[in-house]
Every structure is written in structure tokens, then in C-alpha cells.
């Protein structure tokens, strides 16, 4: 029994040391991390991925994000009495933190920002998201809809005067990054689960 107790305690101590070292190595900056043996880093990353303990503490570091983005949903709506393709593009909604409900804000903006950053590798994801916007916005089947990212980059070294300049930029200073265009599906299309928070 004493042997088992010592063996159990030894296993716990080794686990604590291993886990502590793994999370430390996983969060190290690339420069110092190069001094850690490659094999150890590989085992540590594999262990943390398998146990879902991977982590990265980089909010506001090394520098806070300066780019502010809002997302404009445009649809090509028909003129009265005409077909959808004959109308001009009109903005039907602007997605920005100020007009999102507080308890949904982080969920939806995290996703659309990730889509903006990583989803452009997979255009089908963007198209899928666009098609889910149609039902809550009441857009008929076949209406072309697009999502455009508009952004401003805050000045790096603002002074008191620059914040006034920045507020002026907020009105007119948005740059645009157009996304894909997709046609709206039928309202009861079972392949698309519509967004509920719009």
C-alpha cells in the first residue's frame, strides 16, 4: 500500500510538472520558444491540442488592435414592378457592436470577424453565411446579397486633438473590403438555418 501511495504521488507530481511546462511552452513568444527542444514543443502542443487546453494570451498584446470594422449588408432589390436584377444595390443593415444586442454581440461579431479573417480561404463559408441573412431580412428568393467589411484604422499615436480627428473619420473615413455575392435561397430551404438575431 505504501508503495502504491508513493507511486500515485509520484505520478501526480510528474503530471503537474509536465502540464505546467506544456502550457508555459505553448504560450511562449516565438523567439524564446526556439531555445526549447523541438521534440518537447511538439509533444507539448500535441498534448494540449488533444486535451483542448491550448491557449494564447494575446488580447491587446503585443499591441491593441487598431482596425475597427463594421459589416454592411447590401441587397439588389427590384424597383417597383420590376425584377430583382434590375434594381440597384441598397444597404439593408449595418452590423456593428453599437446595434447588436448585448447578450448576442460577442457570439455574432466573433463569427463574422473570423469569417472576414479566415473564411476568405473558403468562399463557400461566406456564401453560406450570406444566404442565412436573407430570411430574417425578408429578402425574396433569388435576390443578390453581399456583405462588405468597412474599416477604419485608428491612428497609432493619437493625442487629444487626434481623437476629434478620429471622430470625423468615423463619419467619412471608412475603407471597404468587398466580399462575395450570393443569391438568396427559398425562405423554407431546409439546408439553411436562418440567423435569428437580426
Amino acid at each position, binding site marked *: 500500500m505504501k508503495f502504491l501511495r508513493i507511486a500515485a*504521488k509520484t505520478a*501526480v*507530481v510528474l503530471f*503537474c510538472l509536465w502540464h*505546467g511546462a506544456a*502550457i*508555459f511552452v505553448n*504560450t511562449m*513568444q516565438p523567439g524564446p520558444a526556439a531555445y526549447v527542444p523541438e521534440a518537447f514543443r511538439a509533444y507539448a502542443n500535441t498534448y494540449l*491540442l*488533444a486535451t*483542448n*487546453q*491550448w*491557449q*494564447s*494570451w*494575446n*488580447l*491587446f*498584446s*503585443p*499591441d*491593441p488592435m*487598431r482596425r*475597427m*470594422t*463594421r459589416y454592411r449588408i447590401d441587397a439588389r432589390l427590384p424597383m417597383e414592378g420590376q425584377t430583382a436584377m434590375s434594381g440597384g444595390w441598397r444597404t439593408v443593415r449595418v452590423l*456593428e*457592436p*453599437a446595434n447588436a444586442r448585448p*447578450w448576442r*454581440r*460577442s*457570439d455574432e*461579431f*466573433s*463569427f463574422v470577424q*473570423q469569417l472576414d479573417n*479566415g473564411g476568405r*480561404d*473558403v468562399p463557400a*463559408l461566406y456564401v*453560406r453565411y450570406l444566404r*442565412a441573412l436573407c430570411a430574417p431580412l425578408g429578402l425574396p428568393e433569388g435576390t443578390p446579397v453581399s456583405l462588405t467589411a468597412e474599416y477604419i484604422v*485608428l491612428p*497609432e*499615436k*493619437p493625442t*487629444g486633438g487626434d*481623437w476629434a480627428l*478620429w*471622430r470625423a473619420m468615423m463619419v467619412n473615413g471608412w475603407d471597404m473590403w468587398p466580399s462575395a455575392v450570393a443569391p438568396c435561397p427559398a425562405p423554407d430551404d431546409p*439546408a*439553411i*438555418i*436562418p*440567423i*435569428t*438575431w437580426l
Partner: protein
Amino acid sequence: MKIFRTIDAFFFGRVSATGFGLMRAMWGASVLAYFLKQWPDVTRYYSAAGELPPWLSQTMTNPSPGTSILWLFPHPQAVFAIYLLLLVCAACACVGLRPRITTIVTTLLVMSFHVRNPWHTTGGDVLLRMAGVLLSVAPAGVHAFSWQRARLQCRHWVRTRKLLPPLTMPAWPQRMLLWQLIVLYSQSMWSKLLGTMWWDGTAVGIALHHTHFGRFAVSPISDVIGIAGPMLGWAFITWESCWLLLLVPRNITAWWPADRLRRWLLATSFLIHMTFYALLRLGSFLTAIPTVLLGNLHENDFTVMRATVNRRWKGKISVFYDGDCGFCLRSMGGIVMMDWLRRLRPVDFRSSQEHHKWAPDLELKNLDRAMHIRLPAGKTLHGFSAFRALAWHLPPLWLLASFLYLPGVKRLGDVVYRSIAENRKKCSHGHCKV
């Protein structure tokens, strides 16, 4: 041999499990709240018919790492069923019903949902996952502050008029939790020093004026706070670096007791993150941090907090109860369990010795009609008024206490209390049904 004893004491010395129990309760509540707000969109976020179907997410440049049960059950109905299971387990983990198994299941399901669609997760969710793992493996820690423990306490109180000694656990889960916080803050500090904006003092101003984060981004409030931005930025980096002092051996830091440093860091971490909550939108990070801080509390931290709250409080409140009534004993047990500030003195008025010692002027027939309390200043209250006065001294009832003084509540309370008090007469000892 001394090194082995030191290692044994460091990892397996007994510490209070109360902190971990509180952490479990808050962790369960955080997980429940986080996932409840996703109710309308669960199938859209996590099923194959939603925004991130498996066949598309696997083609991404960086597919989500880790393992998830939702890869095996991608249909919307199955996802929703698993989601309901998560909610139930999180609620049970919060109140401490079968705490071990519900904590383990909740942790595994949280990981599954986060891995299935990591695009809705933030840094706070990483902390919640990490806390879940530690709670799952911590011996005894997860049972503190649980419904099961409360039942054991109540039974013990009824039998012996004393509470069970506080639960303890080996130190290693708390050491790992503290190490996680040290890694979090030190790596964050290190990363900040590699940038430029924290050096030139503009980082705080930028964060406050960023419309994604700042609650007052377009308001002059951010301009005013931003003036102190350089000083606030450097103060924050210095504070983050203080966490590394916890790694310095105690015999070197004899001039600054390690316990006091840890307590100061935990308290300031809580205050700083509450300030962040007031100024910034940071999602679940702001509930995850207080959750993790709770797990780092030791028994002497609770003693210090109690002494601070009781700084101007003198004496004890005598609470007179009927020791011959099972219902009364269980009720008194519940009140004693909530007496975190140690301000109460339970007195069994059926014991003539205790009755004559603490309230010789109160007649038995009056004590028998309703619960009486005697405050240190000598004032005596009974019935609902006594309960209402006691609520201010029982921290779990603090939120309820103010509502008990609303107009009309006293009258209703008197009626309810009288009804309960009269029905307790119909009980036999230990077998009361009200």
C-alpha cells in the same frame, strides 16, 4: 530526504477545499449562462446544417484543433439533445448535485462545443475549459459547497449541534491553478513589451476608443481616461510582472509575506477586471477571471475577509430554536451553514441551562411560538421580523434582504411564518413534514 518531504508538503499538504467549491459553483453558473444565451442559434452554430458544416471547416487553412463528440453527431436534433445535456449538467455542477460526474461531463461537452465551432469562443472560454479540467481532477475540492455536502452538514448538525470540519484537499490542484494565472499574466506582459504601443503609452487610449471593445468609445469619457493612458498602461504591465514574484522562494521574501502578496494580487485582479467590465466589452473573460480567482482562495483568506467585514461588529446574535423539533433543527442547521461571518450563537431553549444563560427573561411559551433572536445591543425580535433581521448577517441572503423590507412583505411574511410555525407542532421529532 528533506527534499522529498518538501516536495510532498508542496504538492500534497492539505489546503481548504472551499475555494475550489466556490469556483465550481461559479464555473457552472458561467457555463450555463454562456450557453443559455446561444439557445436560439445552437443548431446554426454547431450542427452540419449550420454556418460551419464539417465538410467546409475541414478545408480551412487552420481547421479547429482538438477532439469533439459533435463530429460524431452532426445532425441538428442530436446537437440540440447534447446541448440540453450540457445545460442540465452545468446547472447540476453549479448547485453541486453529483458534483464530480456533472463537472466531468460539463467539461467534456464544453470542450466539444468549443472545438466544433471555435469562431464563437474567446479567451474567457479558454479559462473556463482549463478550470473545468482542474475541477474534474481535483480530489475532494469539487465536493465543497455542494448540495451533497449541505445535506451531510445538515444531518451532522441535527445529530451533534456542530458542523463538520471544513473539507480539505491536497494542494496540487490549487498550485496548478495559480501557475496558470502566473503564465497568463507573465506571458501577456512579455507580449506587450514586444510591441510599441504599450511602450509609448497609447495602448490604453486605443483600447478605450475601439468601438468593438470600448463601451464609451465615442464618448468624451474615453478621452478623459485616455489622458492617464500612459500611466495606466505602465501600471498594468508592472502589476502583471508582480505575479512572477510568487515564484520567489519564501525565505527570500521574508520581508513581504507571500500570502499577503498573493492576496493582494487576487484582490487587485478582481478590481482591475471589474473596471475592465465597466469600460470594455470582453465577453466571457470577465466572468471567467473571477471564477478562477475564487479557486485560489485559502482558509486564511476567508478569515481575513471575515475579520474585515466584522471590523465594526461586536458580540453575537443569539438565535433561540426548539431542540425537540426536527424541522427546527434542520432549519437551524441551514441558518448556521449560511453563518459565514460567524455572528450567530444558536441556543436550544429546551435546554434549561442555555435558556437561563442567554435569555432568562424570555418565557418558554413565547419561545415556543416563534423563533426569537437577541441582538448584541439587547433588542429581541421574533418570527418574520427576526428572520428579516438575520438576513443581513447571512451573506447568501444579502440579495434577498432588501426585498424583505418592501411595503406589504412584512404582512405576508408574518402570515407565512405563522402558518409554518403552527404546522411544525404536527411533527414528531426528526420526521417533520410541512
